[in-house]
């Protein structure tokens, strides 16, 4: 479970990125985080990743207050989070297998090659890339790269998937293919997607947290969204 309680994030120059934001996300929930640029969507994701701490308030992830100054186990927190980015962040000098295996090795460095191979193959089948393990990023389309990024995010025991504009660089057809992948894992993991794409949000009818100027202005269950 994720709880944001009165979270404020003020940057050193004084601009307020989040202003008293509070919400709760149940385990295995599917949530869209929407709002115009600068609304605070990415700040929420970064706070969840503990890239930085909030100015005040508390953020509880699985009963641990990650906003606390005494919280030091950032690696452990991140090992439970899968992250998908707009720009994929796929290592160009590694093949698909290695790009996914890196996520597993970070979680458990004692896995042998057979265990890695089995786990990676399983997740590649899940994202419909069963034959692409040995290919390098330069040999893949943008849609395929984002599938690899999703595979890397969901492999192993990562229970919370955070996606920051995952379809921002994709054409409409590929966008839907990627969303189908998220639908596939719905109910098995907590999914939080920050997006501008109104079509997707309105079609999928999931919970929507609407951000505006650093404030949570709406929390709509099975909702839609208009820009």
């Amino acid at each position, binding site marked *: 479970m994720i709880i944001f309680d009165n979270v404020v994030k003020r940057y050193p120059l004084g601009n307020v990125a989040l202003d008293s934001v509070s919400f709760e996300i149940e385990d295995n929930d599917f949530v869209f985080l929407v709002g115009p640029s600068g609304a605070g969507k990415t700040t929420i994701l970064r706070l969840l*990743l503990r890239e930085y701490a909030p100015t005040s308030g508390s953020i509880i992830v699985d009963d641990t207050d990650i906003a606390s100054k005494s919280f030091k186990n*950032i*690696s*452990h*927190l*991140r*090992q*439970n*989070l899968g*992250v998908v980015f707009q720009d994929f*962040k796929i*290592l160009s000098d590694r093949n698909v297998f290695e790009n996914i295996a*890196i*996520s597993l090795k*970070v*979680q458990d*460095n004692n896995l042998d090659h057979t265990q890695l191979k089995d786990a990676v193959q399983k997740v590649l089948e899940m994202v419909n890339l069963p034959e692409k393990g040995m290919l390098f990023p330069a040999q893949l389309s943008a849609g395929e790269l984002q599938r690899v990024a999703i595979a*890397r995010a969901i492999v192993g025991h990562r229970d919370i998937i955070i996606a920051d504009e995952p379809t921002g660089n994709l054409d409409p057809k590929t966008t839907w293919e990627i969303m189908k992948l998220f639908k596939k894992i719905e109910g098995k993991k907590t999914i939080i997607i920050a997006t501008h794409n109104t079509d997707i949000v309105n079609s999928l009818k999931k919970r929507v947290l609407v951000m505006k100027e650093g404030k949570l202005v709406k929390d709509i269950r099975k909702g839609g969204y208009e820009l």
Partner: protein
Amino acid sequence: MIGFFQSIRRAPYQFVAAFMVLFFTLFLITSLIITLSFIYGLLGYVETRPQVTVYFQTKALENDIFKIRDELVKTDKTTSVKYISKQQAFTIYKEANKDTPLLLETISADILPASLEIYAKTPQMLPEIANFLKDKQGVDEVYFQKDIVDRLINLTSILRYASLILFTFLIIMSIVVMTTTTMFKVALKKDEIELLQLLGATKFYIKKPYLKEGMGYGLIASGAVFIVVGFILVYAFPSLQTYFRGIPSLDLTFAPFPLRVWPMNVKFILIVFSIVTLFGMVIGLIASSLAVDKYLSK
């Protein structure tokens, strides 16, 4: 292992820079260790030699020599006084020159002097013993080793401090150069490190490949030093043999276990190169660790 060689292939100049500075450092460290070992061995050897040797004229009578020996013992300034007869001196001479028969042909026991080998209780008593002997009848020459020992102690002390300064300088220089070159490499891997951090990799997990690489550099550089110094020792061996002729062995006695320095032996060489390899690997480890820490702390 594959990752290590891939890394060298991807950044060959970085490897060359790190290798050269480490090779230079380890080569000088090896040379200093070997030189110091020989000097300490030589010091130990000289210290075990009689501190005062008095040679008598060839016509001096044994009884007169024994009388002087007894007087010396009575002074209570000596720990031992050993008489070497003409015959014993000849035996020693024959042993020392067994490889040059020409020298043996012309010498007989008659022309070699008898001598007393004297060990003093304290070094301060050496001049008094020497003065006491100089005035005695039948004494030809008093050979006084204190100066040699003092000079060797002095030289060893200077060399030890100079080496310490040089060691420190070389090690700092290597660490700084290796840290800088590794930082370039780490900067090139910015995306990978950023991704690893987001995936939850621990600091040690991120550092591990760089630490291994640093240690690998140390290992390769010490291996190269081993080969080069090995060739130099083989080349210099005949000269060393001539230089240390008459000295049966040089040993290091301050070590936790006795170590023979001369004649050259596998144990000594392996110990020196184990120390140097350890030095190289530790330098590589520290430099890589500093480079990654510096990057991660940004």
